[in-house]
């Protein structure tokens, strides 16, 4: 049976088409004001992709169930159900690698830590509270403020010898702190390393409050920042696993799996 998972993030719309538990095709589009258009385009792309990869004819009507997740899940009017992001991340990670015990979804605004039960469903969940500086958005802001391209962050941070200690909890104020530090002669790599350090600290707090155990799977935008993942594993001693599929896609993939479970009636909560 073919199912689709739609992850509506704050910036990107991710769609995964799944047959049984195999990922057939996927698409990732930037969101804009015409959500419907983006959604339809994304679905078409994903279906095309699935057709290309699987080699047999797949059409939209073959999709039996559609599950939506993410911040804007309620926008997907066609979805059969809305699933919590934590459930999706858990299901996705479990399907890819049944060993995984914890999933960190480090996205733009939120860092979400989910621990998995033996059945692959979430056991516990921790998420950063309102007004938090430790998010991907924060890293992006600071990187922007010191004119560092996002894909070079890890490279620069790796060169830092004495990371700057960030103390302010408000992201925008922290930015001004950073600028005055720059003016005072602090090196950009020290600052970016400090920022990542502060995000790692935040993540560790969340990991602890969710009672996380190894191995840990990191998904979301921050998974692509290797400095973040290596620092995290160094500081916590957890084994970090990066999933086989594109880290951004995991929740969408998990949503598609959730659709399957609910459809078959085998799912339990």
């Amino acid at each position, binding site marked *: 049976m073919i199912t689709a998972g739609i992850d509506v993030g704050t910036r990107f719309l991710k769609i995964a088409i799944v047959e049984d538990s195999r990922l057939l095709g996927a698409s990732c589009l930037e969101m804009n004001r015409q959500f419907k258009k983006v959604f339809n385009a994304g679905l078409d792309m994903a279906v095309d992709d699935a057709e290309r990869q699987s080699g047999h004819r797949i059409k939209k009507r073959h999709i039996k169930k559609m599950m939506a997740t993410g911040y804007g899940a309620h926008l997907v009017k066609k979805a059969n159900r809305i699933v919590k992001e934590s459930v999706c991340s858990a299901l996705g990670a479990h399907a890819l690698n049944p060993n995984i015990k914890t999933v960190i979804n480090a996205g733009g605004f939120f860092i979400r830590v989910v621990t998995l039960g033996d059945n692959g469903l979430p056991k516990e969940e921790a998420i950063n509270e309102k007004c938090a500086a430790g998010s991907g958005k924060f890293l992006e802001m600071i990187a922007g403020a010191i004119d560092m391209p996002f894909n070079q962050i890890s490279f620069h941070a790796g060169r830092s010898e004495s990371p700057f200690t960030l103390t302010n909890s*408000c992201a925008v104020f922290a930015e001004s702190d950073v600028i005055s530090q720059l003016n005072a002669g602090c090196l950009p790599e020290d600052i970016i390393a400090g920022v990542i350090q502060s995000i790692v600290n935040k993540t560790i707090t969340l990991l602890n409050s969710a009672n996380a155990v190894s191995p840990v799977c990191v998904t979301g935008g921050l998974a692509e920042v290797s400095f973040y993942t290596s620092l995290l594993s160094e500081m916590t001693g957890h084994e970090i696993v990066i999933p086989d599929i594109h880290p951004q896609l995991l929740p969408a993939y998990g949503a598609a799996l959730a659709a399957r479970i609910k459809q078959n009636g085998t799912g339990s909560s």
Partner: protein
Amino acid sequence: MDGHELIFAGLDIGSLTAKAVLLENDIMIASAIIRVRPSALDSAKDVMNAVIMEKGLSEQDIACCCATGYGRLDIPFADLNMSEISCHGMGAFFTDNGIRTIIDIGGQDCKVIVVNEKGLIKDFIMNDKCAAGTGRSLEMLAKTLDVPLSSLGPLTLKSWRPIDITNKCSIFMELEVLDALYSGKKLTHIAAGLSDAVAKRVASLSASVQMENPVCVTGGVSKNKGVLKFLEKRMQRTFVVLPVDPQIAGALGAAVFAMRSFEKKEKEAFRK
């Protein structure tokens, strides 16, 4: 004093821009705004060069120089430094002696300054809770909307039903904006909602000082007509328009302080 008029300089090294003003005989003869350099000293040198070059002067011609802004402590060639709050108050007051309250909405912070009949601070308040309601947050949110900051104002003016943004944190405001955007709300209404949110923060900040009329707005955000409109509405006051670029008010104030401190020293020297 050897014949020609004395020239005073004011420098405002902010977090995003550096400003300089030259003052001769109570008249502003030159000003410059540049984007900040990696270090405060570099910004100060560059912006200073820009103004003195324009007038064909040299550093020796400056009788006294006063620095303000975040980078004010790191400038060796400044004779004194004043807080930007004093300088903004004085700068605005200097251009129009009637002004009693200055609302300065800058990049990182927002202040409400009440000055006395001499242009000196009587009372002030500055945001310290978080940065929502500042230029930087507006800039971030404009980026989210994918419109240039300069067109946020005109967009706002077209709206008749602004969306309601309740979150206080600018990062999470962005989530609300995105939500509204994706659910197909009109861009004008979102822009207006944003302007209103910023105005709301500023208005609630200003409630804790006793403002006196007339009021003017300085700083980067003062160029945004939309925010001004909502601010006027929320405060139920009308704002006076400054005769100069409101962004340089701080530097101008610094130049005035430079002039005054020089005169004061002169007087003391004369007495001796």
